[in-house]
């Protein structure tokens, strides 16, 4: 019971903290719309990470408000009009900072928890 509860809390906290970096990383590759971002996170994480609409879109709007991403209306691959997001210069800098921070953080955790990769 305790493990499940604590696991949920840690997982939620990690998910919440990493969503911004994940979105920025995916937009670094190419401009994308919200649905595509959600699907890519799910696919590339092997279905480990899934974000609800109530988390994903507010995160996108917050990034846009802070000037890290830029939204614009364009045509998707199927020819339908979609609102797509692309990374701004400030977004690239923020992504670099977050990657560096994540590396430092995960290395520190690994050293203490003695996590090794097979």
């Amino acid at each position, binding site marked *: 019971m305790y493990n499940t509860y604590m696991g949920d809390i840690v997982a*939620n906290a990690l998910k919440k903290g990493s969503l911004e970096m994940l979105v920025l990383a995916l937009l670094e590759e190419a401009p994308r719309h919200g*649905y595509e971002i*959600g699907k890519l996170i799910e696919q590339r994480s092997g279905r480990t990470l899934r974000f*609800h609409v*109530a*988390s994903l*879109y507010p995160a996108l709007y917050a990034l846009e*408000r802070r000037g890290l991403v830029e939204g614009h209306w364009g045509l998707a691959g199927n020819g339908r009009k979609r609102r797509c997001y692309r990374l701004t210069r400030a977004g690239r800098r923020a992504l670099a900072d977050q990657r560096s921070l994540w590396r430092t953080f995960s290395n520190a955790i690994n050293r203490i928890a003695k996590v090794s990769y097979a």
Partner: protein
Amino acid sequence: MRDFEAAVRRTLGPLPLLPERAEEIILELTHQVEDGYREALARGVPAAQAEAEAMAQLGDGEALRRSIVTSERGEKVWWPHPWAVPRAVCWMALAMVAALCLVPGFRRALGESTSAWSPDRPGLSQRTLETLAAKGAKSHDAHLLAFAALHLEDEFEASRLAEQAITLDPSFTWIGARFIAGERLPKDARVDRVAWARRVCAWDPENAAPRLLAAEPLFHSVIPAGAQGPADDPQIARLAETTSWGEQMQAAFRAPRYDAYGQRRFELVRSVAGSPSREALVWYSAQLGPAVPDFLQVQRYAALVTGKMGPEAERAGRYEQAAGLYWNVAQFGARMEDGAEWIWQRLPARKLEQSAYAALAALAERRGNSEEGAAFALISQRLDKARSEAAYEQARLLRARWQSAGSAAALAWFAACAVLLAALGSIAWAVVAGRQRGERMLGGWRGTLAMGTSYAPGLLLGASCVLYSAMSPYLGTPSDLLTREAVFEEMAPFWFSYWRGAWNPMTSYWDSYAQHMFWPVLSSVAVLILGTALLRWMERQRAAHVE
């Protein structure tokens, strides 16, 4: 395909954002739902189930809406909050309070429960009394002049006003009783007490009270006011033998009536002070009338008659004279009991009667008239028993009234504070939330304030009802209260609990404020701290749930 745009609009409700931005967001979320629907169809899911799956992506519409608006604004949205009181309920509560304000009794309750904040005593100030006197002199109003003459501390000025009042209306001659003894108010050597005594006694020759007052200066020249001492003090006998005091007292005891002018004074107070303030009515009514004689003098004279003069006459064989003396005391006791202003004057008067009847019984026994003696003894015993029972019952009643009035006073204080706080909160709510026409969601400090104050109108209504019900037994108008005793018994305990403190009538004036305010203030602070902590906890729980 279903109209997903309409469904998304319904789920989200109105977004408090710029219209173009709100439309963009709705369209974007509609595309999200449509993509989900297409993907579900592609997986072979039936259309109805695919629709449901697609819409389920949005989750709780309210949570999504709050989350979107919070992201767009960069601050937490506090109002409207699921736990906030709906706007319609707030307006309804405010409307009900406004309707309550139309009830005169409620307005009186609100005004009078907060009047105890004033550091002034409820009696009229000397300056106000002077103004009343000036007004009375200008308009030739004997009532105003007489009222000022009774209550002004400056005795010389008061006697001058009394002269004016009596000239205008001789039925006010009784106010001259104030100047006969002059024990309770500051004295002024320029006031001719003997002249006032003659004047009042001549105007009211059958009344014992002014005669007793006129005898007091001689009595107090031997026995100081409030002094304790044996009832058979030889000084009293000497005073009666060597001065006119004994004759004056005898005349007073034989007077056919006893009236300390309490009812006349009450009528005057009611007509002048009662209309602007019932507090003042209680305050002035609680004071004794201008012609309440010192009971110590009465008691000592009665003891002299029944303990010395009567027995001496008996020993000299003047039985008729002794019986007359005792009978005189018994009759005076009965008259004093009839004319007493309140129970605590009535009971000592009954004690006089009882002791006189006991002396009559003993005399009858000594003369061999056992039947008469038994009858007097029975009367004496019954008077004693009735006096004890009345005293016990009165004390019990007074204690019960005092306790209930004290509780009501504390409750009214608490409710009055809540009314004031809630009124301020309601104003803040109206300013902060009521004027937000375009943006029906509030974040930051305004949202926090609006969330908290959305409870204010309900609290205001509740506190108003509590205040009204707590005060309702004490909201009678002066016209409902026909005697001083009625005012004193029905309303005085309540107001005294305000003025002196609900739990300890012996506390000083400022201590009573601290007592009254300590718990309401402490409770309000505790509610504030707990409420804020609860709100923060709720928001954190909700945020965790949304993620």
